[in-house]
């Protein structure tokens, strides 16, 4: 067991600090006086920046030569149930922690002026969400994982429902119920695993065991119900357009950048290594659902009249690529999938931030209300252009690398899946460019006269994202290198699962002969 992990090599518990610092910030805001709104803002900003800087050593000190869990902390928590406070990260999770901590800063900044009511509660909710999200990516104990996974629903539900758009209540409740139903089935699956494997919630230990095939299939679908809703995969994606559209900008950004990555992360972290045989057997279904998601999401985008809704549906399409890459079950597909999760977080996060910037000025999300914005807000237009192109997947932007790897893996796994997925990219270019044209070019809409271009705060928000778009696009290896050993190990695990089945079959055949 102990060979699988590398205990935290730093002198302080870095992961726990990163997880719980936002909670501390939230407590500070709680103690703050209600009328001192700007103090709440500054505490939130300070906490999120501190969290981000504290998470940087995870990036720089990470040992890229191993698939083992690193920075591990393990303490007894509930001895009766054999539950540990057990956290650690590997090549899959490390980047998402950084993405979460970065997103937190952007969310605090983008809400600086747009959130005017219940400011205190808003920043508490944002910080708690951040903390729980990081917790999800670190947890190596199923119980701990589930706590973070579910607890995150509470602040997110409030963010959408309290500070959202006109139809926010419907969207919030839909979001909560969809994810709750999925998660509860996973909970049953977790308990079944726990009892079968001799009462342990330890994820690494559970991964060393083999489970009967039928059980794997049942559990695969139990976990699927939780992860597919979060991704969201086609046909359970319908909560996403509502939630994205109605949420305040910060909420949309958290949803797009981190929260929906958790579903794909769940597939990678749990479904594949725990149920290798079932995952392989279910590949055709998963690929089909992914391809439907890609094309369906893209086609629906063409018909959208609402700016945020369009980006929301584009998420369905892009996340289809991610699941396609994951279930290609080869190294290119998996690495592309992970990288594309990151890319999508950056680009879609940036697009929602950009929409938020213009929404703060115009208070309309209707595409028809825009037009000719490039003359009014030229700096803004150029930023938006970069993100549009990254979303399409233009070479030298990050989208290209991710989608290219996924398609490579997809073709290897199933040619038809690869071919069909390509149409998604083509339609993607169509709806994004058309969107850009309708908003920024053509005649200037009379309502838009006199709009002020981006101010310093808004520019600061978008600059790191632009930087990341090109960094990943030009030199992806600084991110891909994190994943190699982990993905390699994952593929070995997938194959050993199959090999074991084969061995059993061979033995049986031998006996029969």
């Amino acid at each position, binding site marked *: 067991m102990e060979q699988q992990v590398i205990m935290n090599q730093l002198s302080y518990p870095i992961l726990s600090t990163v997880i719980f610092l936002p909670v501390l910030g939230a407590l500070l805001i709680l103690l703050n006086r*209600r009328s001192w709104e700007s103090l709440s803002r500054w505490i939130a900003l300070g906490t999120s920046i501190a969290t981000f800087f504290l998470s940087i050593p995870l990036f720089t000190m990470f040992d890229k030569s191993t698939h083992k869990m690193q920075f591990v902390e393990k303490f007894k*928590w*509930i*001895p*009766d*149930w054999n539950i540990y406070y057990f956290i650690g990260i590997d090549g899959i999770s490390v980047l998402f922690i950084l993405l979460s901590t970065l997103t937190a800063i952007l969310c605090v900044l983008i809400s600086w002026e747009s959130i005017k009511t*219940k400011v205190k*509660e808003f920043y508490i909710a944002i910080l708690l969400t951040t903390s729980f999200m990081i917790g999800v990516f670190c947890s190596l104990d199923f119980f701990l994982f*589930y*706590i973070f996974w*579910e*607890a995150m*629903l*509470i602040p997110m*539900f*409030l963010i959408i*429902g*309290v500070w959202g758009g006109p139809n*926010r*209540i419907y969207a*919030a*409740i839909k979001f*909560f*119920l969809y994810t*709750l*139903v999925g998660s*509860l*089935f996973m*909970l*049953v699956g977790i*308990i*079944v695993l*726990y*009892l079968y494997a001799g009462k342990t919630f330890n994820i690494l230990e559970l991964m060393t065991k083999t489970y009967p095939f039928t059980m794997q299939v049942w559990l695969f679908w139990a976990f699927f119900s939780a992860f597919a809703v979060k991704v969201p995969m086609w046909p359970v994606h319908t909560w996403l357009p509502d939630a994205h559209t109605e949420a305040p900008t910060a909420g949309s950004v958290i949803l797009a950048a981190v929260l929906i990555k958790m579903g794909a992360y769940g597939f990678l972290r749990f479904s594949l290594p725990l149920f290798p045989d079932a995952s392989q057997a279910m590949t055709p279904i998963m690929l089909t659902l992914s391809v439907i998601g890609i094309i369906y999401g893209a086609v629906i985008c063409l018909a959208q009249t609402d700016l945020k809704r369009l980006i929301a549906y584009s998420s369905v399409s892009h996340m289809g690529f991610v699941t396609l890459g994951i279930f290609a079950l080869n190294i290119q597909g998996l690495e592309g999938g992970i990288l594309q999760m990151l890319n999508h977080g950056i680009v879609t996060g940036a697009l929602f931030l950009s929409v938020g910037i213009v929404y703060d000025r115009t208070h309309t999300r209707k595409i028809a209300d825009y037009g000719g914005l490039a003359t009014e807000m030229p700096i803004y237009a150029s930023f938006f252009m970069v993100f549009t192109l990254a979303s399409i997947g233009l070479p030298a932007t990050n989208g290209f690398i991710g989608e290219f790897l996924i398609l490579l893996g997809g073709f290897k796994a199933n040619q038809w899946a690869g071919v069909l997925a390509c149409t998604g990219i083509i339609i993607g270019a169509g709806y994004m460019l058309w969107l850009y044209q309708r908003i920024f070019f053509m005649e200037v809409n009379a309502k838009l006269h006199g709009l002020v271009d981006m101010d310093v705060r808004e520019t600061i928000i978008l600059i790191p994202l632009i930087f990341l778009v090109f960094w990943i696009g030009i030199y992806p290896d600084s991110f891909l290198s994190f994943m190699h050993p982990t993905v390699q190990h994952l593929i070995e695990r997938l194959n050993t699962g199959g090999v074991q089945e084969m061995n059993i079959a061979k033995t049986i055949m031998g006996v029969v002969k």
Partner: protein
Amino acid sequence: MNFQFPDLTPMMPELAMTAFALIVMLLDLLIKKKEVVALISIAGVALVSLTLFGPSGTTFGTMFISDGYSTFFKLIFFINVILTILISIKYIAVEKVNYGEYYSLILFSTIGMMVMASAGDLIVLYLGLELMALSTYVLAGFNRHDIKSNEAALKYFLLGAFSSAFLLYGISIVYGLTGTTDLRAIAAFISARDLAHNSSLLLSVIFLTVAFGFKIAAAPFHMWAPDVYEGAPTSITAFMSVGPKAAGFAVLGRVFMIAFASVKADWAAILIPIAILTMAVGNIVALSQTNIKRMLAYSSIAHAGYALLGIITANNEGLASTMNYLMIYAFMNIGAFAVIIMLRSEGFKGDNISDYEGLSKTHPLAAVLMLIFMFSLTGIPPTAGFIGKLYIFMSAINAGYTWLVVIAVIFSAISAYFYLRIIMYMYMREPKTTVPLTTSFSNGIALGITTAAVLLIGVLPAYLLNLAKAAIKGF
């Protein structure tokens, strides 16, 4: 015949509690300020709770058992009674029914529950049950100026008497069959004479299920609950939703697990459809309620359904999970009622769900507390409600009832909707009028205790789990 005076030490808690209840009843005549009576009652219960650590054992032959199981339930009853008195003090003054016998009745009812938890004999069980029930009937009608409260008391009494008849009928059949009312002797007789397939034994199991099902408000014996919960004074609704329900589970567990141990498969087969129906009725009907007390009545029905899963497993682990659940339920449910009770002020009833509109704006603290209790009742981590449900689900899956847990999980997802609705009203709607809050120091203490318990058990459940496990040892 050689008469031996029975050893009274195992029943010290009951004796001490009875003495205190009588003292409180007498003090009521002397003390004008009823708040003092309330404080004396709380101090009394706190003192009596010290005797819980006294010696365990059986006394009066085997009629009275004091063991870990009964002690755990008595702990629930004590927590229930203390919290109820804390939330009552201001409330019954607002309702203008500030009479001293309120407190002695609550204490007497608690004695009944304690006797039930310790009953080793069906007759003792019946005595305890009637003492509990009669006191609660009166308490349900304590709002004597309110016609709804009168209705609640009458309904509760009539249906309660009906269920008592079922209980007695069941007991008489058991007695006719085995010639004893002692739980262990019944079990011994059944296995010695191989009566497990006797149809009249099954009939008595059914009758007892009806009687206990009434007490724990399990469907289809739940009909009284919504009306009684709505009509009764809010503090008593809180009291009833926890105490008598836990007492019902205490006797259900002991009688079925000990006396009917050899027909486990039969009574499990009876309880499974009841549990499913209970979860279905509770959760689905709660969706359409407009009165919060009524909604929580249905929610309490639903929670009885979850708790039944632990009994259905018919093993000690399952029983421990049910006990754990009831303890957690005591905290979260009384916590919710402690918020509800604050909305009642003179001239304002405040028990409609629409009264919660915009509460987060007018009274942010009350809204946050209600939010915590609602999420706990839904079973969302990191609250205690999640731990309770998880333990129940774990023991049920361990006993091979995975499909039943899947059903429970679906209903639990449905339940999220009506709990979320309260949160939605509080946080996502604008206040129409400013609802005045009746705050008091004692109610604040109750809220503090329940909130702390819900959050602490949610994060660090180890202590409570140990307690439940230790309680079930040697059962």
